Each structure stands twice: as structure tokens, then as C-alpha cells.
């Protein structure tokens, strides 16, 4: 049953993959999701070149394996070896285990030199000593004398009593996975002990343990397979190495990087993630008290805990002050007039250089470096928390609200899939956004143009996502709390679906641009006008984001920067430069 689903899933269109993976680990939900794909497929089609991108991204280069799948594969491999080599299944198992479950390696080695393989693996063809048939013998372990029917031996003939065999096997099993390579207890003998002997002589508990080691060995000793690292998850992943993106989404909904098994972290590379995680653990003591879990309301100073997803915080009455969680500035300053929502992603490194003496300068530098780290860490962590919250909200939406909304608005649940789609996108975007802060932290200070470009892209991404998050979280409430069907529900549908699609495109382009190391920006100043206008990643994403916004909240489009105080828009590449500059930071053209 499970494996059938699995096949379906791989064959299914690209879009279906996404909701399957995210829908909270409830198997039941998957099938119905698949069926409804067609209903909202249009969401992906309203942007020209997104199709090949999506199919590229969701093309599965891995297979999720359940315990049943793994056992099936194991059995198939064992059968294949047993048949081709004309040996018992027990012997085939020993061989496969020895050669790390590589069927081809077993073939190669066996047919190259069977004798050598038999010796190395301990698959003897004849006894080394005669088994004491019908005679009494002293067991070499407990030194007691037994009749031959209470003795036992593997092929080699070295006989030990049943209870010593049982003790030997049990000790090996409780010692760890080494029990899979068990040899005859005689120190001079290397005859392998097969599963047949082990099955007869073990308790149920040990037998279970052995079986776990056996299945684990199939995944862990094989370079193409790994366990899903999520706690409590029993799925494994078979990955086609060298086939593009390392991001894997397990059937348990956990997404992780196949290469380093940390959580999925595109667009940041594994090395940076390792550095960042190390840094976080090294500085976490500091961060704990710096961040704590609450911030005082900037107006009334009451402590506020953030328990909603988006950054727009409204203090409880009577204060009701609306502010931005990140910069604690008034929300009213976050509108279009100040250069777009969320200008607060920019970290100003330019501190006033004054008449400080050396000691003070050093103190200042130390403070700055901590401040700089705090800046990125805080935003990284906040997006992490937001993502957790969004995941919980998504669950809540699927399990409770969707049905309620369907009743109130008199819409079939299949017509409300756009809401789930939006939440899935929010979860994914929070993940990407989170990692862009690690990216930003390690982006070299001196790459000025890249930094500016990066911060611009990040800022746009953040504002786009905030708009989507706000719409899915707050605006939806109106329709959830309505008495009956709302007239403008269809408008809401169009708006949310549109925002979802625009945000998805924007983030996909963002990921690509960052993965390319922001190569569109030539920091050495040789960048020509042609090159920058042709640029694909960031350049086109900017245009697309602008167009998307036009349909929702903004009408001015890409040229809006001209109106901004303190900025001028480059007429060649449209980049928003700061006023004092006379040469465009992006394309180096004169103003």
C-alpha cells in the first residue's frame, strides 16, 4: 500500500509533490491532496518561465523507503545473489552484508576468485573438524560434557553446547551491530555464523534487536541510502548521487539536506551551515539572555511574547501600539513611503568613527561584532520560530479551520486548497529566509555591491512574504468569523492565490541568485550594461516581484525608486542607489 503511494507520488506532476511532503505527516491526507491538484494548478501557470524551474526543482532524485520497502529490497537482493551464485539465502545474506549490500560488488568478487571470497567471508564448504555425532564431548566454553544432540556447530564443526551458543549470540547482539558479522567462537576459526543459527537460539527481545541491526545495516552501510534524521522518523531515503539539489523532503514532512543531514538549507551551502551552527552553539550563552523570549512594547514597555507568525505586532489594549517585531519601530513607518515594507533587514555597519582612543575603539569593535552577529542570529532565529508557528497554523488550518470555512462560505473544501497552498508556501519561505541570514552573515564585508544587492533581494523577499503571511493569517480571520458567505470571498481567493504564486516565484529566483553566489553582480566594476540587463537570477526576479506587487498593493512598478527620498534610480539597470553616490553600485554607470 505504502509503496504504491510512493510510486504514484513520483509519477505525479511536480506540484503535487509539494503538498504531500508538507501535510503534517498524516498519510490519509495525502491521497486526497493528489486528487485535487488539478483544481488549483493554474496558480503555477500565470508566470511565464516558472514551469521548467518548478519541474526541475521537484523532479525527484530520491525515493523514500518505509521499513517494509527496505525489507523488500533486502529480500530481493538476497534472492538475486542466492539465485545467481547458487548458494543458500543464509550464505547470500552473509556475503551481501560483508560487501556492504552491493550486489555488483558481490558478483565481481565472487566470480573473480570464489575461494578467496569464501575464506575472507568465512563461508566454508566442508568441516574443519568432524562433528562428534553420537558421542559425548566437552563444551569448550563451559567445560561441561554433553551428548552430541545438545551440541551445535556451524559448517566448521567446532561444537559448543546449546546454552553457550545462546550466551555467545546474545552477548554479541547486545554488544552492537558487530553481531551481524558473527564468527565461530573457536579462536582459530573464522567460519561465519548465519542467521539460521541465530534465529533458533535467540530470545524474542534479542531477535528484535538483531532484526533492527540487520535493517539498519542495509541503510547505513550503503552509500546511496540514509535515514531521515528527524527524531522518531523511521523512513529512509535512497538518493541518486550527483543529481542536483541535495534537498530531500521525507514522508514525515521533515526536509533535510542529504549531503550533511542538517535541516534543508538552500540557498546556503553545507560548509556555511556547519560554521553557522557551530557559531550559534558557541555563542548561545550570550544569545540566551540577549534574546530571551520576549521584547518590551516600545511604547508601554510591557513585555510581549511573539506567538503569531508575522512581524506586525499589535500591543494589547489599552496601548494598541502597532510595531515591527524586528526593529521595534512603529508599523506606520513600514509602509511604502519609507521605501517598501521591512527596510529593517539592513544592518548598518557604518558606525560613526570618532575621536575614540584605542581601548574604546576595541571595545566598540567587539561590541559591533557581537551586534552584527546578534543582528543576523536574531533574524535567523525569528524566522525559525515563525516557521514553526506557521507549520502549527498549517496543521490547524487543515484539521479544523478548513472545514469550518467551508461551512461558513458554502464552498467545497477542494475549492479552499489555495489556503493550504499559501501556508505551505509560507513555511517554505520562512525556511529560505531564515538561511539567507546565515548567508548574509558570511557575505564578505568588502563585497559592497553584492551586499547591497543581497540586502535588496532579501528585503524584497521579506516584504513579499510578510504580505502573504499577513493575508493568510489576519485577512482570513474575517471570513472565518463571518456569519455567512462573504461577497468578496472570491476576491480574497484571487488575492491570496496571486500572492502565493508571486512569492513562490520570487523565492525560487532568490534561491537561484544566492546559489550562484550573486554572480550577476560584478564587484570588480567590469560589469557592462548589456550583461546586467540580460542577467537572469536577481535581475528578472526583481522585475517579476514588481509585477506581482502591481496586482496587489503597489501600482508604480519597478520605477518607483525615483520617488524615494535619499535614493536615485539608475536609468540603465534601475538599481536604487543612495543619494551621495554618483556611480551606480550595480552596473557602474554614471548617474
Amino acid at each position: 500500500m505504502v509503496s504504491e503511494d510512493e510510486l504514484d507520488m513520483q509519477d505525479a506532476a511536480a506540484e503535487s509533490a509539494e503538498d504531500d511532503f508538507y501535510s503534517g505527516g498524516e498519510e490519509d491526507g495525502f491521497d486526497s491532496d493528489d486528487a485535487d491538484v488539478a483544481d488549483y494548478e493554474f496558480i503555477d501557470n500565470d508566470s511565464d518561465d516558472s514551469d521548467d524551474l518548478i519541474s526541475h526543482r521537484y523532479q525527484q532524485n530520491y525515493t523514500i523507503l518505509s521499513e517494509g520497502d527496505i525489507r523488500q529490497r533486502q529480500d530481493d537482493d538476497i534472492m538475486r545473489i542466492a539465485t545467481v551464485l547458487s548458494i543458500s539465502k543464509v550464505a547470500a545474506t552473509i556475503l551481501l552484508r560483508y560487501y556492504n549490500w552491493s550486489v555488483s560488488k558481490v558478483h565481481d568478487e565472487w566470480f573473480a576468485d570464489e575461494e578467496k571470497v569464501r575464506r575472507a567471508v568465512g563461508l566454508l564448504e566442508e568441516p574443519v573438524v568432524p562433528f562428534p555425532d553420537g558421542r559425548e564431548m566437552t563444551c569448550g566454553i563451559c567445560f561441561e560434557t554433553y551428548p552430541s544432540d545438545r551440541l551445535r556447530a556451524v559448517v566448521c564443526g567446532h561444537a559448543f553446547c546449546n546454552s553457550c551458543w545462546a550466551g555467545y549470540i546474545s552477548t554479541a547482539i547486545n554488544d552492537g551491530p558487530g553481531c551481524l558479522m558473527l564468527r565461530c567462537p573457536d579462536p582459530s576459526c573464522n567460519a561465519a555464523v548465519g542467521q539460521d543459527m541465530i534465529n533458533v537460539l535467540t530470545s524474542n527481545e534479542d531477535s528484535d534487536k538483531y532484526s533492527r541491526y540487520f535493517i539498519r545495516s542495509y541503510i547505513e552501510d550503503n552509500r546511496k541510502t540514509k535515514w531521515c534524521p528527524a527524531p522518531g522518523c523511521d523512513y529512509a531515503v535512497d538518493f541518486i548521487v550527483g543529481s542536483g539539489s541535495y534537498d530531500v523532503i521525507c514522508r514525515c514532512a521533515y526536509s533535510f539536506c542529504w549531503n550533511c543531514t542538517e535541516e534543508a538549507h538552500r540557498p546556503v551551502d553545507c560548509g556555511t551551515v556547519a560554521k553557522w551552527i557551530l557559531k550559534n552553539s558557541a555563542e548561545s550563552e550570550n544569545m540566551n539572555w540577549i534574546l530571551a523570549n520576549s521584547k518590551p512594547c516600545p511604547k508601554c514597555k510591557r513585555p510581549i511574547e511573539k506567538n503569531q507568525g508575522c512581524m506586525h505586532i499589535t500591543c494589547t489594549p489599552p496601548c494598541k501600539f502597532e510595531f515591527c517585531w524586528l526593529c521595534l519601530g512603529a508599523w506606520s513607518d513600514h509602509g511604502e513611503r519609507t521605501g517598501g515594507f521591512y527596510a529593517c533587514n539592513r544592518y548598518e555597519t557604518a558606525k560613526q568613527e570618532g575621536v575614540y582612543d584605542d581601548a574604546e575603539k576595541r571595545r566598540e569593535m567587539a561590541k559591533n561584532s557581537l551586534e552584527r552577529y546578534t543582528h543576523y542570529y536574531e533574524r535567523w532565529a525569528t524566522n525559525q520560530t515563525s516557521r514553526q508557528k506557521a507549520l502549527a497554523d498549517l496543521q490547524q488550518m487543515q484539521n479544523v479551520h478548513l472545514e469550518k470555512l467551508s461551512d461558513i462560505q458554502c464552498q467545497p473544501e477542494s475549492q479552499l486548497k489555495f489556503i493550504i497552498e499559501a501556508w505551505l508556501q509560507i513555511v517554505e519561505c520562512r525556511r529560505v529566509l531564515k538561511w539567507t541570514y546565515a548567508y548574509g552573515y558570511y557575505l564578505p564585508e568588502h563585497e559592497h555591491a553584492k551586499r547591497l544587492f543581497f540586502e535588496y533581494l532579501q528585503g524584497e523577499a521579506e516584504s513579499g512574504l510578510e504580505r502573504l503571511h499577513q493575508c493568510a493569517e489576519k485577512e482570513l480571520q474575517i471570513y472565518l468569523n463571518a456569519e455567512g458567505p462573504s461577497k468578496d470571498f472570491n476576491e480574497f481567493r484571487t488575492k491570496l492565490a496571486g500572492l502565493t504564486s508571486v512569492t513562490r516565484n520570487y523565492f525560487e529566483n532568490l534561491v537561484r541568485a544566492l546559489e550562484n553566489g550573486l554572480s550577476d553582480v560584478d564587484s570588480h566594476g567590469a560589469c557592462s550594461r548589456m550583461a546586467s540587463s540580460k542577467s537572469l537570477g536577481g535581475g528578472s526576479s526583481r522585475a517579476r516581484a514588481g509585477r506581482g506587487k502591481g496586482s496587489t498593493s503597489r501600482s508604480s512598478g519597478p520605477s518607483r525608486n525615483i520617488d524615494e527620498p535619499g535614493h536615485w534610480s539608475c536609468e540603465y539597470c534601475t538599481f536604487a542607489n543612495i543619494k551621495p553616490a554618483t556611480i551606480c553600485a550595480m552596473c557602474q554607470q554614471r548617474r
Partner: protein
Amino acid sequence: MANSNLPRRIIKETQRLLSEPAPGISASPSEDNMRYFNVMILGPTQSPYEGGVFKLELFLPEEYPMAAPKVRFLTKIYHPNIDKLGRICLDILKDKWSPALQIRTVLLSIQALLSAPNPDDPLSENIAKHWKTNEVEAVETAKEWTRLYASGA
């Protein structure tokens, strides 16, 4: 009390160790704990330990013979596979242990280790380095230590 339900194997091994001791090796159980043995190994001829008498302690854990005995040198010895606490780096005392091995075979292996030090699998990094860079001098030190600490006075 621990002695009352001593496995038959341990009793038999002990009897044989006392009645037919291996050459150059003596092992006798402690009076109050039959699982604890006082061991003496004579330094093998033609080794830097020749003429020395080395004291060891050997303990049979509860799981014996499924688990290896625990053995430690009590006499100071200059040997690349034995550290300053007397711990011994020997495969059959660890992963290569088999319940079909015995106290006798373990002690014979330790005796053999004195004849054939293995500086490529060292326990004591410094001594092993000494052995590899200047074997003549290292052997001299081993002889010196044997005279100083293992002369059986």
C-alpha cells in the same frame, strides 16, 4: 559469597592453572575472591625483559567467559603496548575475545607480547616513538627498567 556460585568453568580453569602451570607463568586466585588472580610472568629469554619477574592482576568479570578477563601489569614496564598504569593493548582482551579462550591463553599471549613488542599499534605513544626511532636505545631503557623494577627482590 561471590565464590559460592562460581561457574564450573572458572573452578576447572583454576584447578588446571594450579596443577599444570604454563612455563614461566603462575596464576593463583585470591583467597577472598575466586575471580581475582595474582599473576606472575617471567620475562621471556632473549627479550629486554629477560630476568625480570612481572606482577599482574587478572579479574574475571561477571559475564566471563562471554566477556574477556581484565588484566593489568602491576610492575612498571617499558613496553610500547603497555601504558604507565599497566594497561595492556592486546586484541584478544578487546574485540578479538572469544569465550573459547581461557586465562591460560590470555597469559601466554601477554608473555608473547613481551617477546614481540608491536610499536605500530601503540598504547604508549612516547615509548612507541622511541622504539621506532631508536630501537637499540629503547631496548636499553626496557632492560634498565627491568633491572630497576622487576628484579624480583
